[in-house]
């Protein structure tokens, strides 16, 4: 088992009183709590802080922790031989669990799974994992393989790490950040308590063409200046295959053309929309002929897209 210096984690002295420990914890918890912190390392950091606090705030657990002696953080160590008898009504096998589980076992073991035969029903722990899926998977529904390593009590009330793997069917309708619940797939309940649940957090792989917002998709639609001016019918790729999109004459850059119900399917019967966002693209290299035609257009056209500049400036001077 790897040693963690809980005092160092909280940034307090080893003889700190409970108030100092509480204060240090609160300050760090506000900074790193994963529900309020945007720090990507916050979750891991917070878990360490919470583990340290759970142990050090409880005088019994703190005494047990102090009895483990001092080691370097990360150093492999074994609790002293009589440690288990002294503190653990909960038997443990220290080879395959970590320090926080050892201390969690100390309390839950005493209350619920101890040798005295606890009978208190205790629900299993809930877990949360992220499932990365593609847009196509979200559209059609998919099955993902989940492999979890979770702490679990055996029939002797002993804490072990066990590998659990199963397939989870994700129905169609997923989008980024959506949650699913898999009932009873979390930690095992104790003494007849219900098993915990597993929560799946959906994360979509980025797509080369589409950007996702809710169940709507956005696609850049490059048009030539003449397609935009004259109107055109262009082929647009959608998740369900290519479709012909009518671009009206006089289409301008940034305009959103909506392809209704061509977005991601929702869990209910509806679908999101696909929006094609117009970009007007000019050739970077012109042929002789193209140059001549553009020149002719330039000479013959009276169109001035900046006509409003002068008018607006005049209005500004008048009102100021």
């Amino acid at each position: 088992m790897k040693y963690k210096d809980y005092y160092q984690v909280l940034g307090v002295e080893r003889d700190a009183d409970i108030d100092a420990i509480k204060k240090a914890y609160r300050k760090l918890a506000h900074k790193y709590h994963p529900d309020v912190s945007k720090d990507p390392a916050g979750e891991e950091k917070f878990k360490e802080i919470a583990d340290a606090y759970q142990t050090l705030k409880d005088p019994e657990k703190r005494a047990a922790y102090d009895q483990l002696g001092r080691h370097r953080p990360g150093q492999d160590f074994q609790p002293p031989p009589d440690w288990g008898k002294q503190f653990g009504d909960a038997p443990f096998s220290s080879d395959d669990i970590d320090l926080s589980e050892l201390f969690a076992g100390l309390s839950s073991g005493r209350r619920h799974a101890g040798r005295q035969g606890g009978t208190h029903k205790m629900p299993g722990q809930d877990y949360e994992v992220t499932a990365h899926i593609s847009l196509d998977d979200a559209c059609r529904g998919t099955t993902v393989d989940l492999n979890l390593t979770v702490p679990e009590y055996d029939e002797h009330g002993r804490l072990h790490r066990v590998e659990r793997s199963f397939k989870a069917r994700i129905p169609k309708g997923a989008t980024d950040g959506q949650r699913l619940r898999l009932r009873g797939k979390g930690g095992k309940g104790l003494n007849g308590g219900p098993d915990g649940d597993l929560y799946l957090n959906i994360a979509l792989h980025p797509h080369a063409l589409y950007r996702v917002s809710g169940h709507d998709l956005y696609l850049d639609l490059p048009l030539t200046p003449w397609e935009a001016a004259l109107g055109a019918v262009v082929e647009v790729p959608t998740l369900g295959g290519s479709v012909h999109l009518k671009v009206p004459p006089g289409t301008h850059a940034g305009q959103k053309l909506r392809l209704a119900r061509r977005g991601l399917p929702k869990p209910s019967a509806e679908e999101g929309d696909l929006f094609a966002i117009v970009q007007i693209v000019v050739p970077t290299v012109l042929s002789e002929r193209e140059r001549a035609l553009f020149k002719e257009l330039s000479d013959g056209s009276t169109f001035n897209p900046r006509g409003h500049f002068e008018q607006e400036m005049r209005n500004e001077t008048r009102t100021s």
Partner: protein
Amino acid sequence: MKPEQADAVWLDAQHEFSLAELVRFSGLSEAELRELVDYGVLTPTDPQGAEWTFGGDIVVTMQAAGRLRDDLELEPQALALALTLIGRIRELEAQLRGLRAQLPRRSP
């Protein structure tokens, strides 16, 4: 051994859960959940109904509420305020995601 298959249920407004289920999911007590309803940060599908039910989309937020209460030792009023602010951040993040999706990936 063939791995077992589990069916997942969407946590969205269409899937409703009872007050008792929300107690179990969030770790908050029934009294605490009722207080959050009073503060207006949690709304039952039919507030006048005899048995309250809640849309599944609230489950994740209430789990966060349970964690915040436990980890930061928040009083109900502070918890309600935190949830209101977290809700606003989520809304703004969704708006930002929506606007980002509309930005061209490459300039023409």
